[in-house]
């Protein structure tokens, strides 16, 4: 079993979904919830075993499993993990039980909902672990349908519009990805049998003419930029996040957006290093625009959920900026930020959902004074707001700091601009908190209940991790560093990781902040 941990992580939720589908008629709603929860918890447990077996010092892919799947096509079932995907997989398997627990109140079509959730988990984990490009694409596309159904089936008023928009945006992006993958595949066949193996395609991509490589870079880039989402392809995100049910928003923000940034790092950077440097300025500009534009949009939102959604645009801009700075600090910071954003924004959506369940409004204007009736909920809210705003000692600080520091080393302008956004983030987050928590309490909100035991169980692990990763980020960085190092060295072929300056990472990681 030890050598099949990755496969087990991918398959567990799917098996759970199949069991649910098969027994759906005789299960009560409660049984379905419990079954889904047990499945996701078991998946999380298995993924922790991956962490245990993980060799932090090793740069390449570990625990690789390869089975020929479709021989005639050259499609392999090829999965492996490295320092980047390790944490994203753990983030995913961690957030899923949380989301299932958070959707305990879903009353309609519970079995179908849980099946969609479990299939979604398989697809997401699969896309983080796949090392075969077509396999990756398969999982990448497979994310669409369950997420689409979750938004469209259990979302709020304008859900159908949001669901279709989500579906079409992502599908349009991935269309070009498919052509690019097939193009590489066709090239890999001369000589030898064609393959989708990422490790074998990397040298093939390196041998392409410069112009071709740039076009392929763009094809990959569009697919992932939609997913991230990068300005100006972000317009699906506010709709999808706002209309999705709470768990849907948590997973969209927490996990799905990371598939985009992960793809940029894993495929664009490693396969097209020259094209990456060629387009770095362009991508960075888009990222900075996204950071500031997202923050400004968040500032003017009156809908709490939409505000959080726009904050995601801003935060994900950081991640992309970090990745395309090509310094050890910035890229590691970017990866950290993926994990941190998943936790912090996930928690924010959870809290917004809990507030909504009680007040039945997402409008900031209709809230106010809630801290006096729900001190625990709002206390947790404040904690998460601080975490999201990047307060030192909480997780996002480390990631943002590393990204800004790493970017500053490359470009003062981008570094400075992104630092402004940190200030903006503090403003919109604290201001929105103020409007929710303080001020006059509305009469109808006077008897709202505080957190229930289930809700505490949902929030506590997330908040704990926000703190742990803030205080002891080395837990993450020691396995992320070697992987990002490998990615950067490919881009900056003449330099090794140490030349580019990795000194700040251990310093921060060990808590000795400069």
């Amino acid at each position: 079993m030890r050598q099949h941990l990755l496969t087990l992580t991918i398959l567990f939720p799917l098996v759970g979904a199949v069991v649910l589908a098969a027994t759906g008629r005789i299960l009560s709603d409660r049984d379905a919830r419990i079954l889904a929860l047990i499945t996701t918890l078991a998946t999380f447990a298995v993924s922790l075993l991956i962490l245990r077996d993980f060799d932090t010092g090793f740069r390449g892919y570990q625990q690789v499993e390869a089975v020929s799947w479709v021989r005639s096509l050259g499609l392999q079932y090829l999965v492996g993990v490295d320092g980047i995907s390790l944490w994203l997989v753990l983030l995913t398997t961690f957030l899923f039980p949380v989301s299932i627990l958070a959707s305990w109140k879903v009353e309609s079509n519970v079995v179908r909902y849980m099946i969609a959730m479990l299939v979604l988990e398989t697809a997401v984990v699969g896309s983080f672990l796949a090392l075969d490009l077509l396999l990756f694409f398969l999982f990448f596309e497979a994310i669409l349908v369950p997420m689409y159904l979750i938004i469209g089936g259990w979302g709020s008023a304008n859900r159908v519009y949001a669901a279709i928009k989500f579906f079409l945006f992502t599908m349009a992006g991935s269309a070009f990805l498919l052509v690019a993958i097939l193009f590489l595949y066709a090239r890999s066949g001369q000589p030898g049998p064609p393959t989708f193996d990422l490790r074998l395609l990397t040298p093939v991509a390196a041998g392409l003419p410069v112009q071709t490589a740039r076009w392929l870079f763009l094809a990959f880039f569009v697919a992932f930029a939609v997913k991230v989402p990068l300005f100006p392809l972000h317009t699906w995100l506010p709709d999808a996040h706002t209309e999705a049910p709470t768990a849907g928003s948590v997973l969209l923000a927490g996990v799905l957006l990371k598939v985009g940034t992960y793809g940029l790092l894993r495929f664009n950077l490693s396969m097209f290093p020259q094209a990456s440097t060629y387009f770095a300025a362009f991508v960075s500009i888009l990222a900075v625009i996204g950071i500031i534009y997202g923050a400004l949009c968040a500032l003017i939102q009156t809908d709490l959920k939409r505000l959080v959604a726009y904050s995601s645009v801003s935060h994900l801009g950081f991640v992309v900026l970090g990745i395309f700075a090509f310094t050890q600090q910035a890229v590691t910071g970017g990866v950290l930020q993926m994990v941190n954003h998943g936790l912090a924004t996930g928690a924010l959506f959870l809290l917004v959902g809990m507030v909504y369940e009680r007040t039945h409004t997402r409008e900031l204007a209709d809230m106010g004074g809630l801290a006096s009736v729900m001190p625990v909920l709002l206390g947790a809210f404040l904690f998460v707001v601080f975490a999201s705003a990047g307060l030192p000692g909480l997780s996002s600080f480390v990631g943002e700091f590393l990204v800004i520091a790493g970017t500053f080393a490359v470009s003062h302008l981008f570094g400075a601009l992104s630092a402004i956004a940190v200030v903006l983030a503090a403003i919109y987050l604290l201001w929105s908190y103020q409007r929710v928590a303080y001020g006059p309490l509305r009469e109808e909100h006077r008897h709202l209940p505080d957190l229930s035991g289930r809700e505490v169980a949902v929030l506590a692990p997330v908040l704990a991790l926000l703190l742990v990763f803030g205080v002891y980020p080395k837990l993450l960085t020691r396995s992320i560093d070697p992987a990002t190092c490998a990615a950067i060295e490919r881009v900056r072929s003449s330099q090794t990781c140490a030349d580019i300056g990795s000194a700040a990472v251990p310093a921060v990681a060990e808590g000795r902040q400069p």
Partner: protein
Amino acid sequence: MIPTPALEFRPILPEILLCTFAIVGMLYEAFARRPDPVPHLAIAIVGIGPAAVTAYALWDWSGPSYVLGDTVAVDRFSVVSRFVLLGAAFVGCLYYTHYASRDPGSFRGEFYPLTLFATAGMTLITAANDLIVIFLALELLSLSLYVLTGITGRRRASEAAMKYFLLGAFSSAFFLYGVAMAYGAATSTKIVGVAAPGIVQALAGQTGSQALALLAMALLVVGFAFKVSAAPFHMWTPDVYQGAPTPVVAFMGAATKVAAFFALIRVFDVGLQPLTWDWTPVIYGLAVVSIVVGSVVAIAQRDVKRLLAYSSIAHAGFILTGLTAANSTGIGAAMFYLVAYAVVTLGAFGIVMLVSARGEEQTSLDAYAGLARRSPGLAALMTVFLLSLGGIPPTAGFIAKVTVFSAAIGAGNWPLAVVGVVASVVAAYFYVRVIVYMYMREPAEGIESDDGVMPRIAAGVLAAGIVVLGIFPGILTGILEPASIVRW
């Protein structure tokens, strides 16, 4: 003494059986006391089953590759197509039996013999090695289908049949003229000649007239494009799909496409192989136009049968995309696509039939509103079929799409693949819209429902096949690989 070719009937036993039982069915219809679909179904199955067995016996054929005076080819390529076509005929007959039982007034016993005749024409067209035989088979299947289209005698069906007949007659004329030109160019109508040089030998040896050959190619393209409903020769498709009874559409939509494409592959990739450089641009153009027209016009459709008709035009374009590769990869990709498409089409129209209920009034999108609430099973099956049509994993449609694009890109036709993927995004919109209606709308008032069990089982099996092929496409590619036709 007139030399006669050696007569070897085993390779056309499937067709002989089909025609025999079609005649038995007609006789039964003539003398039957009262209309009853069950004996008809039994006769049809007795014809289809042994036809499949005799077709299977040809898989390991050790005799000559061409029989009956080189007019019929014996190869695994035609065995595969026979299986798909016989399967489609079987499912079509099952559907019609249900269709007739829920609306006894509209029952016409002729459905079964006509379907068998059409199937015989279709299986023959994929095995024919002679343009004349192809033409005869084409006429056999076309005439049967014209009648099948109008079989209920409803106004819309009659109108569709008339349109189909008129336009089909034109295309047949084009095709026949093409055959004449080919004869002029090669002094033979055999695709591959054994006793005497056939078209491919004449063209390869540059003995024929190049101008006539090109003219023949153009005319044959028109004839085939009509049958596979590639734009701009698709005009009949939406009307016929909408007007014809749904069981007929299920059979026709799946089987005609398979038969015509298999014949097209044989004629172009074998017979006109020396002209590959001339016909690939034409196929390329047809592919682009079909994909774009099919995908874009489908957006505006509110009738699900019409929507699937336009989708079938787009799919013809995708299959042509694979064929632009003009190599064994492309042929294999097209074959996989055709099998997957046939399965999906049969399944999807089965659901359409069940939803449309008696009298087939309920074919608009509104009838699908809240289907997941009314009958979750049907909605789930329809979702599988729609996802496969849209090429979304884990369905066979996804693998099919990947293989045809992969073949096209491998041959350097990546712009075509770009057109294809962009169109498939457009297409995703209208497939997903049906899913939206089924899952996210409230059911409309006064919708009749149909609890037919047999079509449900059939559709369920087809959907399972789609998913299994999507996850383990190796099952099918393993069969198709040795069955791929050999380019000359």
